[in-house]
């Protein structure tokens, strides 16, 4: 007790801020406080949990954990619940907002997960009343019905609650009911027949039998929505329940499911695929096949190529699966690409060995049916293969070369440069020319394929097609971006010349053709193109900036000059990318300083000055953030311009960053401060820079010496300000930084009894004013001793705990939700009074 801190927070402060630093609330940075029970915030009482007992430390408060109050029903909520239930049960008072009901369900879920549902029902009979009420036939809104059903399902998940629900036959209503059915089925089979379910479904409880026959009936139905419903229920069942009885269920239902395949077209194909994959993934079923593999094989051959794709991918992702089925699935996935290769008279090569089915003609039909079908199938196929490529269980041998060939062909068909040799090819060409969707998908896949190798000739083709896309004026901005990405990936994967770690001659040759294209892209009237050009450049410099070949080519081009020009681009994203690129160019010593007519003598403004100018004047956040990133990197790398006078640099940057309105800039300022701190104090031994390290025996003298540069650059002023930042991530980061610093100085034995130093008291007083929102007064130069003392007196751990909590927890509290819902239907007492 000592420093009077009560009543500091003005009532007008933002709720989150007040909450964080209310005296007594966990996270109050200074140890002592007065308890303030019953404090009201904006007319709403503060929650009881926020008022800690006098004398309880922050740790005690923190120990209760976040969101404790939501785990039990507090009395206020219990009082509001009956009113809400009666509102919900009254068809005349429609609840129009679905999200409220969703939130309410989430809340009930946390309660039931934490404790007994039975207790909840017993303590709140109104809930049972609501559930019973909705079972009566009446004109209730579907929303409330679905809500009630889901609530019932949730409660039924606990055995002791299930008695309320068993035996009711009117529950198969909507998708919500599906969930419930799964629960009911699972529960009814879990209880009595635990461990050894009847081999015949005839032995199952009446309730389960009823559900099963209902599903059977739905599967036999001619109406697709009913079939879909039944399939979805089964998908959920096999996805969630892995008990032996699911096998019995599958044995009984699989003939009906198989019968769906006889229909043309196969109804609810999408749901059917989901179900079959869910069954195949079930550990209970996949071990013994139950005819599942045959059904999957059959389904693969019955579904249209477009529908079969997701199933094929799902099958190939399975951990265990017969080789023949995998081959069939892979053949389905490859089929469209085989058609493409055939249509352009290229030997499909390895793809042949995977082509085990006779689905080719169907695929060709789909590809040639219409432009939409063709584009859809190719995009899906490419996306599926892209997902499959990096998986360990992908088919082996992986047909890398034919896939490369097919992808290149697709890209050339899209650009109109491929020469089709058949009618089918001519049609494909006509469908695909200029199709941006397919171009994007193919470039993505091409990028993924860079992880593997390919025959030299094909790699040459890859680079040729990429160059074609990068050069073509017809490439749309998004396609161009993908082309840049794929190009970088391929360049990255191209083998390095032994000995000189430079790009291989092949890639160098490509680069020589590419670099003249880049200036044109950097001059594009479309900002997206300029932006992706710069991103590509930054990546390239980052990867090859040190290689002689690349440097020569780059310096011979107009690229460095143009990049600098783009620092003044009207589009903020482009400026940001230009900042990043210039940062890299400068780091690698690639910034050119030509003696142009406008700058005789080559006296150019230094890049550091230019970037500082952007940091202090740019009206948009992105370029300023980019500058902070570059500066941090420069500091880390010991960039020459920075190393010339590091302290001056850091001081200047922190000063500008502290005034920035963009929290990311301020947060990045802390990152830069941390780098400087590490460089000054030495790197922390632990991997995590914030971990509290055991005190290192550091003699006081050198430490004070070491802290002095930090004081000189006013790093502490910056960090303390950030500690009270209205944006949480900044405050968190600052808190971490100061904790790290405190750990570093733990061994420091400066002046004893910090309170006795008058400077410390004045700093603390200033900090309290800052915290209260009055950040005008600077701290000025601080002595290392004062800093250490202040750091020690602060409850940084408590603050970190408070910051870890969500800032909007008051608004998200269940009580607030109940009040809001009642308020919207006008059922709160005070609103009624307002009517008079």
């Amino acid at each position: 007790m000592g420093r009077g801190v009560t009543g500091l927070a003005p009532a007008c402060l933002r709720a989150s801020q007040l909450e964080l630093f209310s005296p007594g609330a966990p996270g109050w940075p200074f140890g002592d406080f007065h308890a303030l029970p019953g404090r009201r915030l904006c007319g709403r009482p503060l929650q009881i949990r926020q008022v800690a007992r006098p004398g309880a430390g922050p740790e005690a408060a923190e120990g209760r954990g976040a969101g404790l109050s939501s785990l039990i029903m507090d009395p206020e909520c219990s009082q509001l619940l009956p009113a809400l239930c009666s509102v919900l049960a009254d068809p005349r008072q429609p609840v129009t907002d679905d999200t409220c009901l969703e939130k309410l369900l989430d809340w009930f879920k946390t309660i039931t997960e934490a404790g007994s549902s039975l207790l909840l029902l017993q303590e709140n009979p109104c809930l049972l009343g609501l559930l019973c009420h909705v079972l009566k036939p009446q004109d209730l809104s579907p929303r409330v019905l679905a809500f009630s059903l889901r609530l019932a399902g949730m409660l039924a998940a606990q055995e002791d609650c299930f008695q309320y629900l068993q035996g009711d036959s009117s529950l198969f209503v909507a998708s919500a009911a599906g969930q419930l059915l799964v629960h009911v089925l699972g529960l009814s089979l879990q209880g009595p027949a635990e461990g050894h379910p009847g081999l015949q479904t005839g032995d199952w409880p009446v309730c389960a039998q009823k559900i099963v026959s209902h599903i059977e009936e739905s599967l036999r139905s001619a109406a697709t929505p009913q079939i879909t419903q039944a399939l979805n229920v089964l998908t959920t069942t096999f996805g969630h329940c892995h008990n032996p009885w699911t096998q019995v269920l599958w044995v009984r239902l699989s003939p009906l499911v198989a019968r769906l395949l006889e229909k043309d077209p196969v109804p609810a194909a999408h749901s059917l695929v989901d179900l079959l994959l869910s069954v195949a993934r079930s550990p209970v079923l996949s071990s013994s096949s139950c005819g599942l593999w045959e059904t999957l094989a059959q389904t693969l051959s019955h579904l249209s190529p477009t529908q079969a794709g997701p199933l094929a991918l799902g099958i190939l992702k399975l951990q265990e699966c017969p080789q023949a089925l995998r081959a069939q699935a892979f053949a389905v996935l490859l089929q469209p690409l085989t058609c493409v290769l055939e249509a352009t008279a290229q030997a499909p090569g390895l793809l042949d060995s995977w082509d085990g089915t006779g689905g080719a003609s169907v695929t060709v039909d789909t590809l040639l049916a219409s432009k939409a079908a063709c584009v859809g199938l190719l995009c899906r196929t490419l996306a599926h293969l892209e997902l499959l490529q990096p998986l360990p269980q992908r088919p082996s041998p992986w047909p890398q070369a034919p896939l490369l060939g097919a992808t290149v062909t697709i890209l050339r068909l899209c650009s109109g440069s491929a020469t089709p040799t058949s009618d089918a090819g001519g049609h494909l060409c006509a469908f695909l020319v200029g199709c941006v969707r397919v171009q994007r998908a193919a470039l993505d896949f091409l990028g993924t394929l860079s992880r593997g190798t390919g025959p030299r000739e094909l790699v040459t083709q890859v680079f040729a097609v990429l160059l074609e896309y990068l050069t073509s004026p017809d490439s749309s901005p998004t396609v161009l971006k993908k082309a840049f990405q794929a190009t970088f990936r391929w360049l990255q994967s191209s083998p390095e010349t032994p000995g000189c770690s430079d790009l291989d001659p092949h890639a160098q040759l490509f680069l020589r053709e590419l670099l003249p294209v880049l200036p044109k892209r950097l001059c594009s009237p479309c900002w997206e193109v300029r932006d992706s050009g710069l991103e590509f450049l930054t990546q390239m410099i980052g990867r090859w900036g040190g290689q002689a070949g690349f440097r020569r080519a780059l310096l011979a081009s107009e690229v460095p000059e143009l990049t600098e020009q783009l620092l003044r681009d009207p589009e903020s994203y482009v400026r940001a990318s230009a900042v990043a690129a210039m940062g890299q160019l400068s780091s690698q010593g690639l910034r050119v300083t030509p003696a142009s007519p406008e700058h005789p003598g080559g006296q150019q403004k230094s890049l550091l000055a230019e970037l500082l100018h952007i940091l202090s004047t740019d009206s948009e956040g992105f370029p300023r953030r980019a500058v902070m990133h570059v500066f941090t990197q420069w500091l880390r790398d010991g960039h020459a311009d920075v190393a010339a006078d590091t302290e001056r640099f850091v001081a200047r940057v922190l000063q500008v960053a502290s005034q920035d309105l963009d929290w990311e800039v301020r947060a990045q300022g802390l990152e830069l401060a941390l780098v400087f701190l590490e460089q000054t104090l030495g790197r922390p031994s632990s991997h995590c820079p914030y971990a509290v390290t055991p005190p290192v025996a550091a003699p006081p003298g050198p430490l004070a010496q070491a802290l002095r540069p930090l004081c000189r650059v006013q790093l502490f002023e910056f960090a303390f300000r950030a500690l009270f930042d209205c944006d949480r991530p900044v405050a968190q980061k600052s808190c971490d930084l100061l904790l790290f610093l405190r750990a570093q100085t733990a061994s420091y034995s400066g002046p004893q009894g910090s309170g006795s130093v008058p400077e410390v008291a004045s700093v603390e007083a200033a900090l309290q004013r800052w915290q209260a929102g009055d950040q005008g007064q600077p701290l000025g130069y601080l002595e290392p001793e004062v800093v250490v003392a202040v750091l020690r007196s602060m409850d940084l751990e408590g603050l970190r705990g408070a910051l870890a909590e969500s800032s909007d927890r008051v608004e998200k509290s269940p009580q607030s939700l109940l009040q809001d819902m009642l308020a919207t239907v006008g059922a709160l007492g005070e609103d009624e009074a307002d009517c008079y």
Partner: protein
Amino acid sequence: MKLYCLSGHPTLPCNVLKFKSTTIMLDCGLDMTSTLNFLPLPLVQSPRLSNLPGWSLKDGNAFLDKELKECSGHVFVDSVPEFCLPETELIDLSTVDVILISNYHCMMALPYITEHTGFTGTVYATEPTVQIGRLLMEELVNFIERVPKAQSASLWKNKDIQRLLPSPLKDAVEVSTWRRCYTMQEVNSALSKIQLVGYSQKIELFGAVQVTPLSSGYALGSSNWIIQSHYEKVSYVSGSSLLTTHPQPMDQASLKNSDVLVLTGLTQIPTANPDGMVGEFCSNLALTVRNGGNVLVPCYPSGVIYDLLECLYQYIDSAGLSNIPFYFISPVANSSLEFSQIFAEWLCHNKQTKVYLPEPPFPHAELIQTNKLKHYPSLHGDFSSDFRQPCVVFTGHPSLRFGDVVHFMELWGKSSLNTVIFTEPDFSYLEALAPYQPLAMKCIYCPIDTRLNFIQVSKLLKEVQPLHVVCPEQYTQPPPAQSHRMDLMIDCQPPAMSYRRAEVLALPFKRRYEKIEIMPELADSLVPMEIKPGISLATVSAVLHTKDNKHVLQPPPRPTQPTGGKKRKRASDDIPDCKVLKPLLSGSIPVEQFVQALEKHGFSDVKVEDTAKGHIVLLQEAETLIQIEEDSTHIICDNDEMLRVRLRDLVLKFLQKF
């Protein structure tokens, strides 16, 4: 219905449609690619061009050395440039009733037609088409007249001599029809024959057909045309665009339900996307200027230049080019820039709304105000004192054979810092550059053609569903250089009918109906009889009166009382024969019932045979045949008139009479 195809150039069409009793010329395009065979006309004395060696045959014969010169490895005609006119022999052009113009690029041959063929009809076009068309003609005449050339070469055109010449002169077609440019006087006279029309305005031609211009979205005032009678509709689609540029959007809906759709004026560069080309244009421009080079843009004084200036307006700041001067040099530059701002009603919606703010619809007004864009009638005069480099110059003519552009090519061609950017798609840039080779300056080809591409055409045809499509033959196969691109041709069902220069097409539909009006008093006298529910018939006797292609049924003159006088009698001979008419019959004969009726009337040996067209009822004993077909019944019996009449009456019982 016939279509006479007078031009082989798909984007500079000239067709004549004979429809009902009218003869309508659709567009009047002038193929100027012929000028590429001529030497450029330098505005400033060019030592290089004036000292070219004459060309001589392999055997050393130099009789052509005055007409043909060798330049940069090619042979050019040293004479006033000449243009390839539309075919004038295929049809007597004095019989053309009207000429419909779709856009200002498609009227450049107008003076040749209206002033030299005996044409006496009317020309229809929208106001911007006429005004900007006038500017284009004025510029053309000015470009050619201000560099007078005494010589007019004609020897080389002799067929026997032409054979001996090197390509491309050897392969030049229709050289005998090539003509020198018209004069301003001819232009004025031709334009005076134009009647202005507005979009959707219906113009009656002799009562026979109605023509209507529709917005085509390609250029200021550009139109497609509907030519229709009461029962037939022909749509004429010329240069059209679905892109959002400055003109009013294309009216597609009105093209629906056409019997024939004549499709011309598609994009000349179907593989180049205009957006990409504009990007290419801007980037190359910026790169050149940044390096201290000048940019030359050979262009027409109206059209795409407006869009380019608008793009540059948005681009120059971002590219740091704010200090670079833009020059627009044309004898009509000022008028063109000003005209564009006053045709608000012909502009796209966005630009129209600007006028109400009020703001100029095109941002080039601001470029002019801020001195970023300056315009001059010629490079002589003010321009030479204002001229500052590096700069960007927009000037004509895109053929590089005449106009101020010739001087800039000579001036800037030697430096690799400079760039010429071709944006107009009408001329092959390589051929245009031929007399300037070898060239150090960079050449960029970014043709910007906003007219319909084949994908858009395919969508359009699906949408408007014409019964027949007629188009130039170039559109029915992929371009020769890209024979695999099946997407670069018109794909429709039934396949499009194609035409080529000097061909006459019989359009594939027959006129089956004609509208005839009936006078009220005549209509009053009709007594309709319902023969089927909803269908009534009445007989009418009237005089068909036809005047100005309108047909009217008038009551017949009352029969005058015979008075015995000779003169009177002769007068009554003139009036139509008004004998009492036999009643008309309708209905069909049900064979079974007819046979029953025959049997009832004592014919016992009735036999029925089915034939392809109906039935034959055979009365064996009477040796009589009754042939019953859909639209006729014949009773064939041998000289037994009594029997025939009996049978006839039986047949009549089954039919309705009125």
